[in-house]
């Protein structure tokens, strides 16, 4: 277990992640909230509240609030950016694929996830995977109507 080689910080903190962190998307309030959930990482205190506005099966707008580290904030920002305009099914597929990437079980499947690719570097920092997935798990729970969620 000892002395794996040093993962590079630049893998974790890709420029694009830092940009999302500095200017996160999805901070404007919604006109109408169809689904919402609060997520938290009970071991560090990171919290996110995620609200969705839908039209039929399409996600119109995503709103996020809360506080967290650069990874969870950037991941939430990417979520807002990516999922707006997608159908619920498409959004769920993206979520699943991101989780598969994080847990090394894509089995070679390739899905276009845009900016999200930048999160792949988080894998080399296992304790931070929770941070990256927090907004996504919260998104899933919002859809099934669970109001609270946590990642572990």
């Amino acid at each position: 277990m000892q002395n794996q080689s040093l993962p590079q910080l630049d893998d974790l903190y890709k420029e694009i992640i830092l940009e999302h962190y500095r200017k996160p998307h999805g901070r404007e309030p919604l006109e109408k909230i169809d689904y919402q959930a609060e997520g938290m990482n009970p071991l560090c205190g990171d919290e996110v509240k995620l609200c969705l506005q839908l039209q039929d099966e399409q996600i119109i707008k995503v709103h996020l609030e809360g506080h967290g580290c650069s990874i969870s904030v950037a991941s939430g920002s990417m979520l807002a950016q990516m999922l707006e305009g997608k159908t619920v099914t498409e959004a769920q597929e993206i979520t699943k694929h991101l989780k598969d990437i994080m847990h090394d079980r894509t089995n070679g499947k390739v899905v276009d996830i845009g900016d999200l690719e930048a999160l792949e570097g988080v894998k080399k920092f296992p304790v931070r995977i929770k941070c990256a997935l927090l907004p996504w798990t919260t998104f899933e729970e919002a859809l099934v109507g669970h109001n609270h969620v946590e990642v572990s």
Partner: protein
Amino acid sequence: MFDVNKIRKDFKILERKIWDNKPLVYLDNAATTQKPNVVINSLVSYYENYNANIHRGVHKLAEEATTLYEDVRQKIKDFIDANSTAEIIFTRNTTESINLLAYCLDDSIIKDGDEILLTEMEHHSNIVPWYLLRDRRNITIKFTPITDNHELDYNTLEKLITKKTKIVSITHKSNVLGTVNDIQRIAKITKANNSILIVDAAQSAPHMKISFQDLGCDFLAFSSHKMCGPTGVGILVGKKELLEKMPPFLGGGEMIRKVTFDGFTTNDLPWKYEAGTPNIADVIAFGTAIDYIEKIGLENIYQHELKLTEYAFKKLKQFDFLHIYGPKEITKRAGIITFSNPVVHPHDIATIIDQDGVAIRAGHHCAQPLMKKLSVSATARASFYFYNTPEEVDIFINALNKAFDYFAVGACKELKQGVKSKK
């Protein structure tokens, strides 16, 4: 291949000499077992390389320690065949596991007027927690009797279960009689009656293959220290639905999701039931013990103990004044031999054979009600584990012989004869 002499090399303490160079003959395995070198090394390796508080740290050591700790949960889930790691809770020992249930089932399950059904062969750890619960709630506690052959009286058990019986808590294997109870049979009854079935597996988990799912019980408890693991770790396996429904037990770090100045919410299972810094090192070393036991093989363990018990029984026949407890059929009670006689008190036996390096237990074995039932105040018990040998049985028998001679010939000849003639 099961080779006891090779196995013994895994245990440094088995080289120990007692008094003036008597080899240790450790036959007190039902109280606690010895630990193989790999388990001790696991502790050393943890403290020398990874020690950190878990779950809460971002740094390397904390990450490693957390992984090592949570991997053991997975190992135990597999070992005991539970449904998921959410069902595996780390406690201090079997006793704490049962107490946790007595506190937490209280609020969610037990109402005034309800009944709890135990058996006459329970260890204090599966009696007193329920007495404490009775101090808080107005409930009745009943004891399923044992038969003359020292087995559970299943017919009476069936009659004792009523609509009021919310909990049935029962040992899988008696630490005095060696009797193995038929949990599946009881589970059918409790399921039909909607009672919760708790199994004290402290004496079974170390010695036979157990599947939580096959047994059909709702909760199962056992202790690391009785199965090659360190002291300070117990396991509670529980059905997820029940663990979710029950309130938390101890409050503090780890078990919370969120705490405010007004209240708190609990963490997910299984952490909901683990408050404060866990016994990290010992849990990790218990994982090593599980690996070790699985390498030896539970079927091998069972068979070896059966052979030892048979051999010891044959040898014990020479002491025709001995009263041996437990079912007549050896297959029903492998690994444990409890006995007494009216001449030499168990304490005196234990002291005398200790002089030959033989470690057995004398006393009530934390089962005073059972002692009462057996009309005896104390008994002597030899209990085996897979590292014991027939040669050790011989030493034990010879030492016993000396003990009986000492008392009988030295002083109480007439008493011993009295016993013999009374038979």
